[in-house]
């Protein structure tokens, strides 16, 4: 078997073998080095958090004209998104090439969000009411969620149509949808821009 010879000075003279009285401490530096090396590796190689996502439901494709839903012009709001980051335009109601004027809005807190909240104030009032009830434990969690989505999808709630160009960047579309979610706008859709709207947008951006 394996045997360790600890020098030859005590061999053969009949002296009793004594264990060395050394310190019980061992040098832990290499172990610490290794531990931290592994730690660093795992920290760098792992994905700590799952990515965040935004849920969105797209409408079904409708080909036949008679299947298309009749929309109430009073509740309609349209946002036109241009090719550049700051080109977001708004008009309420139905589009008429000669009379509709486009209002430029920016994506800041006082721009688009203010506009959405202003348009959506009836729904927001209902939701605020629900929230106070929920905080005071008057309604349950599931009831709160159900009533909130009902308020968002109410027949009288305004709806927003987001229209894009071929060159519109994905980022602006997401920014605008995000603003809708923040302002509790439940009814919105992302569609293509009509030719007339493209002309109006071009006139506005002077391109």
């Amino acid at each position, binding site marked *: 078997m394996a045997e360790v010879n600890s020098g030859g000075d005590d061999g053969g003279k009949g002296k009793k073998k004594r264990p060395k009285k050394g310190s019980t401490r061992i040098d832990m530096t290499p172990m610490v080095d290794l*531990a931290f090396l592994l730690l660093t590796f795992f920290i760098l190689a792992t994905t700590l958090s799952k990515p965040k996502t935004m849920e969105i439901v797209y409408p079904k494709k409708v080909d036949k004209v008679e299947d298309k839903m009749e929309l109430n012009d009073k509740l309609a709001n349209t946002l036109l998104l241009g090719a550049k980051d700051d080109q977001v335009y708004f008009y309420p109601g139905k589009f008429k090439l000669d009379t509709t004027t486009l209002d430029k809005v920016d994506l800041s807190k006082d721009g688009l969000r203010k506009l959405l909240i202003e348009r959506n104030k009836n729904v927001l009032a209902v939701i605020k009411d629900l929230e106070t009830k929920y905080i005071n434990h008057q309604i349950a969690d599931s009831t709160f969620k159900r009533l909130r989505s009902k308020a968002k999808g109410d027949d009288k709630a305004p709806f927003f149509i987001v229209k894009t160009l071929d060159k519109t960047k994905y980022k602006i579309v997401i920014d605008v949808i995000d603003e809708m979610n923040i302002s509790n706008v439940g009814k919105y859709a992302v569609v293509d821009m009509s030719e007339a709207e493209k002309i109006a947008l071009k006139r506005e951006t002077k391109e």
Partner: protein
Amino acid sequence: MPKIKMPRSSPSLDMTPMVDLAFLLVTFFMLTSKFRANEPVVVDPPSSSSNILLPENVMLITIDTAGRVFFDLTGKDVRRKMLEAVSGKYKVNFTEQQYQRFSVMGTFGMPVAALPNYINAGEKERMKMDAGAPGIPIDSANNELADWIMQGYGASERDLSAKGLEGKALKERRIRYAIKADGQTNYLKVRKVIDIFREREIFQFNLITNLKGGPADLPK
């Protein structure tokens, strides 16, 4: 003035607590970690205030700034079944070894015909191929993405029913569709992909975004 005497003590200090802590952390990271999947393209998604987490079982479509489309699906068995179905349709044969490699692979952006070579390639070679990857064809004449979507969906459904899941458990485990696009990608490219889904009666998506810093509160 008395001379200041420095205390003479050994410079070594007790490292045991530090070692304990280090190993505790190592153990924690080893057990909780999921390794970062090798991504063939770098995509910088736009930010939003939404904080919904990405679900467990997802079909992930990645779209880069140039509009190239990449495909990924979670689940080893599901991937294998999907590739079997696609292989039958496109008459491209794969060996057993290739099936196994594909089932643990990540995102890919290759036409089916180029896939066997891509699977065979080593790590470095594959990275080179990814840089020049044409993306999965999505035009109406040669819509391979649609086949991946349908076969992936079919494989996932078969897998779930084989596991005998029902009701709420089935609903939770059912595959979700995630889209990860770069903020600078033209929306048109994203819409083309979404339209392919819509033509196949899939309407709900998870758009992957970065979390925007700070709370998104309403102005008073």
